[in-house]
């Protein structure tokens, strides 16, 4: 089974259990099916299949499409691999929701992921049932809920959520084509495609306000401190009985921002990271999400106005040079300086905004993304093949197509080693050979062989390797847990969970060991997913 579906299966099994997994597997391998089709392939009762489908639709990983076949209306089901893969990020989402908005927000996301979708009413109900002092808590929860919603970390569930994106696209296209009287020309078709993409994008964007109503503006200064990190807050209230779900895109966007900031801290220094964070917060607005190449433009003055005071005394910039002007640098000085550093750094974090005047800058996400991918790729090559092989690959990436002699000269390696290393890279599919025959007979002796690395291809393959590794790790976690099944069941027992002393010393040790192993595996899986984010989502 190819890699991506296998990982999906692994995730579904882990999150939803074996029955749903079977249904998912059929859908993953066979593609779109009707209910009876699924029943036939799974050999399971209709009822069970239907329940499994409902669960998946509820969690937004399964889609249906209605089509007319002759006189009958048939309903096809399909599964969203991308959506399933995003579920790997759940732990991270819950954690960061807590970091950004407090404990309650983390609980909200948790609940939402457990149930697939959630209304404010459900949430209130849950609070009443589970919290010790529900009356006060409800207010807090409600506030966090609307905060999450207005920041679009959660969005209202819409009917088209249960339709596959490709269906929505085809439908919209069909509609557009119908408007044209004659059959559309190729050019028109292409135009329609672009237009439809845009339309769907817009639909997703405009989603933010659905399910919200403008807040009565009396207690504006209520949670200023909490929302200060996110500029341009519009205080909104959430309607009680609209279903909400997690908006992975928005989370990914913030993960990306964090990664970019980390990168700046790493490449330049802490101060640069801080300034970049302020930059992103200043320029952040509802638009400019993931997939955009640049942030909103902002100027050094804007950022300087929010520069924390400790940066003034401890700017992280070397000041010994400045014996000429002894006075302390102003906030604007520091920020301008950091902007310059960010701009000049090899990662080119920011660039001048195109048509915004001299002092405006944008964060160049595209460039940073490429930079991060490269960095990670280099690191991988280095640890997998060693220094000099990595050097050869880097030379090829930078210079394009090269002959062996040239490579050897630049890499300053003996001819024999160079050849060996090129061959090694070749067997791992990292570099390829391009032949340029000098004569019509294409004799090898009269052919120039050029080596090159096609980065995009490497990234694609790397992503697949990542999927496979994650699947391996996840499977291993499952196996590790399964071998200790008995023990785990024992742990679950009421008397044991209340009194740990009922466990024997051996059991305790086994549990500890298991925990350690699982933790190690989980951490690795998380880090792998981080890499996936860089290569797929940023």
């Amino acid at each position: 089974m190819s890699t991506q579906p296998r990982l999906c299966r692994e995730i579904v099994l882990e999150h939803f259990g074996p029955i749903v997994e079977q249904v998912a597997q059929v859908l993953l391998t066979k593609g779109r099916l009707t209910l009876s089709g699924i029943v036939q392939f799974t050999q399971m009762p209709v009822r069970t299949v239907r329940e499994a489908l409902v669960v998946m639709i509820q969690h937004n990983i399964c889609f249906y499409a209605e089509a007319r076949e002759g006189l009958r209306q048939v309903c096809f089901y399909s599964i969203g691999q991308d959506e399933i893969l995003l579920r790997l990020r759940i732990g991270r989402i819950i954690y960061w929701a807590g970091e950004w908005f407090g404990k309650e927000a983390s609980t909200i996301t948790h609940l939402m992921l457990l149930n697939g979708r959630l209304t404010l009413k459900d949430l209130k109900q849950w609070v009443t049932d589970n919290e010790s002092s529900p009356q006060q808590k409800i207010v807090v929860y409600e506030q966090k809920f609307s905060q999450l919603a207005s920041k679009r970390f959660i969005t209202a569930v819409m009917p088209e959520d249960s339709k596959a994106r490709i269906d929505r696209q085809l439908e919209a296209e069909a509609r557009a084509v119908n408007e044209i009287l004659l059959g559309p020309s190729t050019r028109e078709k292409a135009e329609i495609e672009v237009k439809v993409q845009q339309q769907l994008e817009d639909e997703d964007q405009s989603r933010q306000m659905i399910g919200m109503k403008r807040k009565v503006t009396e207690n504006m200064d209520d949670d200023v401190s909490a929302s200060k990190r996110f500029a341009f807050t519009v205080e909104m209230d959430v309607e009680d009985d609209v279903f909400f779900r997690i908006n992975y895109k928005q989370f990914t966007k913030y993960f990306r921002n964090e990664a970019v900031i980390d990168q700046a801290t790493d490449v330049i220094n802490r101060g640069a990271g801080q300034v970049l964070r302020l930059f992103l917060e200043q320029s952040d607005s509802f638009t400019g999400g993931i997939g955009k190449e640049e942030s909103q433009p902002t100027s050094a003055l804007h950022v300087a106005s929010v520069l924390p005071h400790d940066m003034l005394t401890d700017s992280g910039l070397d000041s010994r040079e400045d014996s000429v002007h002894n006075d302390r640098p102003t906030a604007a000085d520091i920020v301008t300086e950091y902007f310059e550093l960010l701009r000049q750094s090899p990662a080119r974090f920011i660039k001048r905004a195109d048509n915004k005047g001299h002092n405006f800058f944008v964060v160049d996400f595209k460039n940073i993304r490429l930079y991060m991918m490269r960095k990670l790729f280099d690191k991988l090559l280095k640890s997998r093949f060693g220094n000099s092989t990595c050097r050869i690959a880097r030379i090829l990436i930078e210079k394009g197509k090269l002959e062996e002699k040239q490579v050897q000269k630049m890499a300053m390696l003996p001819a024999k080693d160079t050849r060996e290393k090129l061959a090694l890279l070749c067997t791992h599919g990292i570099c390829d050979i391009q032949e340029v025959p000098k004569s019509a007979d294409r004799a090898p002796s009269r052919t120039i062989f050029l080596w090159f690395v096609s980065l995009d291809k490497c990234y694609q393959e790397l992503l697949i390797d990542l999927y496979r590794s994650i699947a391996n790790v996840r499977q291993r976690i499952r196996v590790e847990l399964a071998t200790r099944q008995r023990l785990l069941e024992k742990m679950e027992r009421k008397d044991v969970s209340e009194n740990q002393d009922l466990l024997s010393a051996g059991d305790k040790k086994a549990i500890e060991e298991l925990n350690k192993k699982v933790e190690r595996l989980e951490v690795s899986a998380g880090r792998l997913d981080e890499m996936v984010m860089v290569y797929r989502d940023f």
Partner: protein
Amino acid sequence: MSAIKTEPDMDIRMSNGLASSSNIVVPAGLSETEKQVYITAAEYPAGVSVGDVTIKIGSIPAKDVMDGINSLSKKSLLEFQMMGDTPYVRVVQMKDYAKTSGLDSESKLIYSHIKEAGNEGIWTKDLKKHTNLHLNVVNRCLKVLEQKQLVKAVKHVKWPTRRFYMLYELTPSSEVTGGAWYTDQELDTDFIDTLASACYKYIYSRSFPRGDRNVIFKADYGHYPSAAEVKRFIHEKRISSVELSTTDIICLLDLLIHDDMIEKKMPFAGFMDDEGDSDMENDSGGVEWVYKAINRNVTSTTASDGGIDALSEVPCGKCPVFKFCTADGPISPSNCEYFNKWLNF
């Protein structure tokens, strides 16, 4: 090329200069005319045109002078050279004369060809082609010449299997030896590594302010080292026993760039702009690049920057059977030995 070609001539000129005209040793057994011609010619170590010789020796008829020149040339005491259209003569140095005088004409021919090739050396095949001699003859002559320590065989880095010959006393040019990076025609990787790491240390020391690791230089910091400075450093510290040119150093620095250790920067120019960047590259080819270490946490070329990427961390990242490993096949994560080891570290 042309610069290198003239080198052997220069050698001779210099040694001739030492022999200064006052104490010219005239070979014995020459006629008066020949002596006269020889002395006159010897005053011009770089050679003198035949016409000038005739004028100089006014006392002897021009025809006799010409005869004298010819007979000297036959005795290998004078050699002819064409400069443009005019024939020049030059005395053959005594020691050179002694060397070649005992040789047969074929060996002499080969010797002169090898001499012409200078410190570039000449390939045996080319020798054969130029002299039109049979290969056996060429080999025999070479053997003789080698025995007399007049010529020597050298290895060429570019064609390790070909035999190149040059005069015994010459040092092979960098073309032949491969330059500073080659020892005995082999790329000296240890030497390169040592030098590269020395360069890196030096650049590193000038890339970040001392003290607090979090403090960095400003964007307009102007003291990142250039290649010339690195060269000076290497020279002063006597790290290399070989004389290194700036080109050699740039070669090394490029290597460090390819290893992602340092970056190349335009020196700060105060008014730099986006547009300025490209302009400067274009119209001032003389701008010297400066170099800066990239990662502060990497203090030497052998140290790694600590972090390991997620994929290499898990066993699968380096697994030799990664491609064969399936969820439920004979090799699978469930029974994977690598994982066992990794989890029980």
